[in-house]
């Protein structure tokens, strides 16, 4: 199917943002259709175009893809950002799952009750600086290369950059102990 991929989501980051990042990093232009009302979502559901009644949904290559991870995996492989073999893909997958967990925490922050926000923000900072960032800092230090996996730009690098920028929006100096991530 000729034409650009078409993204269906609300007009904001949410679960679609990682997909926008990956397409952009791969140099792929895309169109977006924004869901603004409940009726918009119901219309999509009634048309039967949402496999599990959920968005994100991306129309690409004749498919109506749903499920964020499935979409991201497809894009990574299609645009050669998924390593050169099964083992490199395994490492990329592991790294990406880590940044997904971290970004997941940040994604839910706006939906938390006001009195829980400060506690959750502290947890995000703690997880970022003690669980996640040290892993990527060490990986870069150990092999001394520019990219996380296989000395080549991959989905893992793009996902990490997205996560770093999101974390910095929460706490501007969050990278202070991580020179290689900087």
């Amino acid at each position, binding site marked *: 199917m000729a034409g650009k991929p078409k993204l269906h989501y609300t007009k904001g980051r949410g679960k679609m943002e990682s997909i926008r990042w990956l397409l952009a990093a791969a140099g792929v232009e895309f169109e977006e259709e924004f869901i603004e009302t409940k009726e918009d979502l119901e219309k999509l559901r009634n048309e039967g175009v949402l496999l599990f009644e959920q968005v994100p949904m991306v129309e690409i290559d004749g498919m109506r893809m749903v*499920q964020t991870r499935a979409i991201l995996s*497809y894009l990574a492989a299609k645009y050669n950002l998924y390593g050169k073999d099964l083992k490199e893909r395994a490492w990329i997958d592991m790294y990406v799952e*880590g940044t997904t967990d971290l970004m997941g925490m940040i994604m839910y922050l706006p939906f938390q009750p006001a009195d829980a926000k400060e506690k959750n923000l502290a947890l995000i900072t703690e997880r970022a600086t003690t669980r996640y960032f040290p892993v990527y800092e060490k990986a870069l230090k150990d092999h001394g290369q520019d990219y996380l996996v296989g000395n080549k730009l991959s989905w893992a690098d793009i996902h990490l950059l997205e996560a770093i920028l999101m974390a910095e929006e929460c706490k501007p100096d969050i990278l202070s102990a991580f020179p290689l991530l900087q």
Partner: protein
Amino acid sequence: MPGKPRLTYLNGRGRMEPIRWLLAAAGVEFEEIFLETKEQYDKLIKDGFLLFQQVPLVEIDGMKMVQTRAILSYIAGKYDLYGKDLKERALIDMYVEGISDLMQMILMFPFSPLDAKEKNLDSIKERAINRYFPVFEKALKQHGQDFLVGNKFSWADVQLIEAILAVEEKIPAVLSGFPQLQAFKTKMSNMPTIKKFLQPGSPRKPPPDDHYVETVLKVFKK
């Protein structure tokens, strides 16, 4: 690294069960280490075995793999259960992610407070019957094949049979409106590797009980 894959987790289903299913379906024997105390878990972390300080951990082919999805993808890729091309893989991924959302509800169920259990059970039933099972019923009906994708046994089939059995444990008549899924369940259960896994004495773990819940809370206590 020669030798069987080695799984480290608690002695129960949790997030490791889909991995046990997939290895078993692929006919791969594996070893298991069971976490029973906080001290064992802390030691694993201290020894640097757990990339993100979490289990499941699967030692396979010289890697210490963590993150359930990464592990499952690797096993599917390695044992040829991931379709023949990128588009089949995309469909398998979509199916697996959907089923995974349903399984997540079942995973969390034993940990919900007593007064929320009935409501959560209703949610599981509603989602299974209205959102997930219809998709697979339709897929099987449309192509009339035995397997979900590409007329060939794949990770998606293993994930679906696991989910069907798990939901049936809670809602015995759940497949009553789904004749294709009933036939699918029978066919999959009779495949040699899966049949073996469903027999007593296999690595398959029983449904979570109070003791399992206690162990989880104890081992992962902060």
